[in-house]
């Protein structure tokens, strides 16, 4: 056991001491927060200036019908189209909205300006014009304006989740994001750290140090030490990311709230663009506020706890297989043929997860995928934020533990033979033979 500890220590330190580890540890949260901040900043800044629209309406229908908003200001002009066009070139921040006398909404309405108008701006104007025309037509058909106004009800569904503590608001958007993010992280981590295990095994084989090591420890101890050591590296990295992201986002949030106008604008943007409070959370660029909001409805210690469990379980299950693949080949290019059966369930789960489980977390398919050990680390993480019955969670976790003990056992039988085999093109048949060797 002492020797396994020594191996874990070496595997861990030799990786954590690397520059690339440090860089990655700091780069990922910085990039994440940086990108989020940038999105928030740009969204706020994009609507910074009030856009002046000069409406040259020759049809007479839209006269005084446009409503001004936070960033749109309409004024109405008269005159000649050519003159108006010349004038608008002098005013850098203004747009000319030209509606000809015999207008056709799909053809000859024009927005003319020195610079290109944004797509949102055009959308706003189009929406307003559509509403104006619809209203006019409805009124012409004899419908009362008061009926018209009362018919524009807004619908906003509040999802409530029944739990032991009673009813609580289910933040669908945040739930989706948390489920997606944790499943995606597990998916990535299984590949990254699994491949590290495989590369470590190949390195020991190609440098031929393997024979020295296995004359001191049993192959199983070496494999176990390597898997656990690299797993510890993964955990360290995740913990650092969580701490750094939390720290940096608090800093970023502080910075944003300190700048009152900035915050006000952010809120304005969010209120204006989104009607549904939950969609608002999903679609908004401001992940910082969104996570802060979501924290009220999402049980983060529970999510992080299950995340760590499924990361470790999935990692142990898959890294043992990666180790077996590494032992069977002489260099990395030969790994291709054995990688497919390992990567396929992962990719498959991820795709199904993103398309089916997210939309239907309690379907039969979702249930089975979150129970079977090969798919459960990803599938279950998507389901967990939506709420999973305890018995399913216990079943899934138990099977995952049994699963990784099984794969480790299978892998170690291939590994002990593979590490001492050189210069052989190995087939699946051969692997089966190794598996059956005595001692």
């Amino acid at each position: 056991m002492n020797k396994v500890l020594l191996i874990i220590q070496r595997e861990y330190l030799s990786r954590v001491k690397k520059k690339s580890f440090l860089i990655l540890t700091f780069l990922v949260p910085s990039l994440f927060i940086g990108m989020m901040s940038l999105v928030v900043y740009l969204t706020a800044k994009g609507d910074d200036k009030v856009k002046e629209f000069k409406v040259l309406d020759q049809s007479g229908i839209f006269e005084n019908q446009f409503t001004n908003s936070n960033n749109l200001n309409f004024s109405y002009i008269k005159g000649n189209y050519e003159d108006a066009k010349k004038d608008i070139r002098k005013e850098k921040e203004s747009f000319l909205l030209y509606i000809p006398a015999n207008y056709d909404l799909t053809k000859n309405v024009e927005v003319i300006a020195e610079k290109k108008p944004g797509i949102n701006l055009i959308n706003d104007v189009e929406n307003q014009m559509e509403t104006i025309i619809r209203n006019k037509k409805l009124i012409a058909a004899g419908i009362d304006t008061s009926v018209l106004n009362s018919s524009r009800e807004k619908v906003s569904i509040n999802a409530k989740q029944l739990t032991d503590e009673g009813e609580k608001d289910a933040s669908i958007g945040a739930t989706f994001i948390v489920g997606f993010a944790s499943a995606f992280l597990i998916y990535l981590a299984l590949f990254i750290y699994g491949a590290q295990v495989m590369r470590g095994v190949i390195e020991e084989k190609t440098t031929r140090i393997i024979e020295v090591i296995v004359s001191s420890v049993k192959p199983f101890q070496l494999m176990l030490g390597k898997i656990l050591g690299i797993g510890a590296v993964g955990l360290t990295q995740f913990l650092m990311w969580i701490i750094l992201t939390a720290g940096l986002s608090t800093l970023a949030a502080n910075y944003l709230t300190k700048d009152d106008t900035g915050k006000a604008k952010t809120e304005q943007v969010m209120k204006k663009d989104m009607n549904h409070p939950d969609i608002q959370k999903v679609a908004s660029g401001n992940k910082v506020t969104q996570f802060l909001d979501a924290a009220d409805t999402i049980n983060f210690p529970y999510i992080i706890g299950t995340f760590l469990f499924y990361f470790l379980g999935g990692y142990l299950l898959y890294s043992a297989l990666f180790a077996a693949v590494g032992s069977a080949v002489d260099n990395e290019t030969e790994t291709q043929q054995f990688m497919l059966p390992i990567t396929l369930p992962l990719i498959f789960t991820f795709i199904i997860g993103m398309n089916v489980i997210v939309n239907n977390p309690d379907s039969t398919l979702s249930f089975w995928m979150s129970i079977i050990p090969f798919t459960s680390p990803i599938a279950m993480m998507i389901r967990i934020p939506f709420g999973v019955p305890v018995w399913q969670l216990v079943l899934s976790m138990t099977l995952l533990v049994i699963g990784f003990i099984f794969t480790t056992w299978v892998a170690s039988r291939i590994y002990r033979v593979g590490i001492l085999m050189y210069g052989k093109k190995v087939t699946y048949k051969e692997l089966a033979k190794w598996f059956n060797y005595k001692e």
Partner: protein
Amino acid sequence: MLKVSHIVKEYAKHRALDDVSLEVEKGTIFGLLGPNGAGKTSLIRIINQITGPDAGEVFFNGEKLNQSHINKIGYLPEERGLYKKMEIGEQMLYLAQLKGLSRADATNRIKYWFEKMEMQNWWKKKVEDLSKGMQQKVQFVATILHEPELIILDEPFTGFDPVNAEVIKNEILELNQKGATIIFSTHRMESVEELCDHIALINKSHKILDGSVKSIKNAYRNNTFRVGLTREFDTSTLKTFEIISSKKEEESENFTIKLKDGFSTNDVLQELLPQTGIIYLEEVIPSINEIFIEKVKQLN
């Protein structure tokens, strides 16, 4: 100290070791000789408990081989290797600790050996920065750091330049004098012939010969001698010997001869002296290599 008894090891298609038995006495230098693919490495791996035999047993100091013996054996494999990116010092500490040394003990011993082998400033270096010969030196020190009772060296002198090979050879002899038992495994039989007390020859998974170097050589002496003469002599009537081969050089006539039964070298000299001048006469002692070839021929 080491007893290998009726070992059989089979791989998928062939039998690597077939009923091999041998015994290594404490404090001796033992040569495990045979061509490539004879089964030497398979046997060594079994002694190192890297693989297990399909049949047969190994005893270490009278006990059946078990995990506790791992730390008493030092093994230098034929295929050498170290972690390329790891510092030499750290690497040696790691390997020594895997053999059961404490960190403090390991540090002291590494320092001692670094000084002895003139590697003092290598601690912080990485393996990839060393020449191949230097790496071999590091590997050798790593093998013996935990002061093993049994040192197994697989092809120990390949990869060393003559100077360093001599250094290593002397270190091995010194360790042997301090009580360590040494097993050399090699296919270059002439390279260890003069070092070994005892040898075993392995060919095609079988042990074909086993014994002390002296007794084996004595058994394969066959009254063959080389003589150098100043001029030719009458070869038509030879009483005491027959000529196996001859070779003419500028200043001498050289013959390989075989004594006839019942005659000694003195009789040969008496026969030759009246006819020619004698430059030298020496016994032809077969090399292990020749004995091996002879033995394989006999078996076929």
